[in-house]
């Protein structure tokens, strides 16, 4: 199963290497790992997407928390959250197909950020599935370059404490975890029929 974890880490050299190394040393699979600054220059925030069963996820969390330079670990297993991925995509766009692409980008709330004689660059953010859907739609035009940041995530509501690394609490959590509730993005449009069709099943 796919899980999102975030880790607040001390902003110093070697921390990323330590975290990445821990994952490989213990045989955990990372889908994506994003590091960025936070409001406090002393700390960075990592968002890690892992493919793991319940038990492995528990180990990943604990092993992360064990690293001295990792300050706080949260998982989003039981918490409503917002996740976003950012993409820059450069497409082949001759004059005749340019307007179609611009239309598609607008449909996905993307922005055209660069236009060349035969190319066009679109910036698009959203949940991973939405970006995947866009990529499939524009593939026929010819993708010249594509870059994605990987997922960042944040819990909904005022609490920043959801899914904390309090081990005692975790240990006492009932064995049957509640299913993940993904709430619809409030105030945002629902995906169009076209998008839904283009989204690969699963």
């Amino acid at each position: 199963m796919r899980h999102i974890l975030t880790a607040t880490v001390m902003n110093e050299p070697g921390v990323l290497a330590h975290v990445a190394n821990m994952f490989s040393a213990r045989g955990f699979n990372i889908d994506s790992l994003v590091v960025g600054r936070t409001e406090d220059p002393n700390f960075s925030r990592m968002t890690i997407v892992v493919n793991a069963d319940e038990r492995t996820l528990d180990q990943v969390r604990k092993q992360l928390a064990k690293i001295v330079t990792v300050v706080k670990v949260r998982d989003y297993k039981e918490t409503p959250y917002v996740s976003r991925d950012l993409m820059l995509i450069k497409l082949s766009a001759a004059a005749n197909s340019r307007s179609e692409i611009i239309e598609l980008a607008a449909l996905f709330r993307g922005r055209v950020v660069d236009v060349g004689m035969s190319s066009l660059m679109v910036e698009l953010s959203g949940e991973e599935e939405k970006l995947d859907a866009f990529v499939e739609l524009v593939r026929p035009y010819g993708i010249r370059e594509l870059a994605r940041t990987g997922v960042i995530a944040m819990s909904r509501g005022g609490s920043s404490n959801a899914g904390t690394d309090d081990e005692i609490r975790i240990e006492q959590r009932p064995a049957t975890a509640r299913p993940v509730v993904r709430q619809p993005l409030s105030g945002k449009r629902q995906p169009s029929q076209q998008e839904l069709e283009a989204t690969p099943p699963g």
Partner: protein
Amino acid sequence: MSTSTSPIGAGANAPAAKTTSNSNATNAIGAPPSHRTSSIVVENIAKATEFTANGLPVLGRPTGKTDRYNGMTGAQILLQMLLEHGVTDAFGYPGGAILPTFDQLYEKQLNFILVRHEQGAGHMADGYARATGKPGIVIVTSGPGATNTVTPLATAYMDSIPMIVFSGQVRSYLIGNDAFQEADVTGITRPVTKRNYLVKNVRDLPRIINEAFIIATTGRPGPVLVDLPVDVTTGKIEDAVDDTPYLPGYKIYKAGHSKMVKAAADLINASERPVLYVGGGVILSQAWPHVREIARKGNIPTTTTLLGLGAFDENSPLSLHMLGMHGSAYANYAVQESDCLIAVGARFDDRVTGNLKLFAPKAKIVHVDIDPSSISKNVKVDVPVVGDACLCLEEMLGYIEPRPRSSWLSQVARWKASFPFAYKDDTELSKPQAIIEAINKVTGGKAVFTTGVGQHQMWAAQFVRWSVPRSMITSGGLGTMGFGLPAAIGAQVGRPNDLVIDIDGDASYIMTAMELATMSQYNLPVKVAILNNRFQGMVRQWQQLFYKGRFSHSEMVNPDFAAMAESFGIRGLRCHRKQDLIQCVEEMVNHPGPCVVDFLCETDENVYPMVASGKGLHEMELGIVGCAAPNSDREMGTLA
């Protein structure tokens, strides 16, 4: 050359070894284990009891913004802070990039032990830490000096041993330029240290040294490395710096969650066939009096891991001795039959559990451990208690109800009677087990023992009657051959008045034998008993059992160990005849200085019981151990 003269009378500094049997498994809480009759006294290390608002222990000297370091160089600060943190001894080897620090050591405020190879320094510091409970300190140079400490760091990391390595590094502006004797030491050691630092500015040094000591010694202890570029050790602090440790991501678990402690005690009280499974964490947290008292109060049979040996008194009828791959049959049967397994400071290592799917199938599992990541890592735990074993058990003890559990105890006693550790003394050469029994007999088990890794290590675990904590010093998790000799030297430095014996194998011993020169230089009265079977014994055993007897590169052609020792100025003895065994051991133990004895022993001897990989604990090969058991018991054993 080797001599067989009569023992030289025990000199003033020769520890008196006495043969005393001790069946007192039930020391009262708080009282030190009662081994006053012997030379071995286990001193408790003061544990931090006061903590700051950040949860870090309060250091001996107040921290904060201070100008006390003004005008001092990094090297001067290092030495002064080592002394302030109570360091009295250190191990290491000089070299270009660490010379500023060595210049400070010239004044001999520290007892510095010059080793012959940095790996030796690491294992000495490790042995020192295991023998005393204090962190072991290593000072080495950059590049090869630092990389030579990787094996000791990994050894200490696997066994959770407090140790701090200070390594030199090239000047910080040269880092990354492939300078002479430069290596990415923090990169190389990151996976084998609890935390490591590259100090970029001398102003950070006081804080980092404070942090290093806290991290190495608290929580689940472990090794820390501090990399010191030359411009840091030569650089001066000119104005006030803050030396307050800053560890926002570090949590020290103290008392267990009281609800979980109570739940654990309820489970234990309700159980009919409980087993205490005690690991090295009990030694690290000094929880042995509590373990002994819980076992006594609840009549709970107790088994220890390799690293837990000494935490429980094996002379007690409640003792099941060691469990696991080469553990006792009765410990393994008891675990498999148990309805409540109480793991304390142990981590369900694969050498302990055998096939996980078959491990303790009938048992509810209580796990007391200070490291939350140990909980449910290998075995699903029913009641986890995260905290310091000492504090958790102290609280749990109040809830434990006295229960006779007589049918369980008599079952255990029957197993113990049927499947004792055994060997057949039917060869011309001594059996290795007989040598260890002789050492146990002469010393009464009252010595600090170290071992290498392999058959001799397992036999030492089986045939010494362990009763004193911190008396078994061995590389468990990493299984580092060559650990025995340097660890013994370190232990002797830490406990100069105790008898220290390295029970070693010929192959393990020669891996680090250059440290004989260190032993000789400082006249450390370490005794080395080499069980010389001219093979890497455990490799030979596996090749015999699983590789059709194709002994691929496991046979050793050894030097004359006694003559070799003599060449270092160390007493060297040979014991080639069975009938000289006791006399040789006595001669070794009574020799006032360092002494190496080459005990020639039988080659084709295997360690039993043995749980082959992939098998459950109850499916062990009993070998000779099963021969004494009546048929009915053997069946019972296999049914367990």
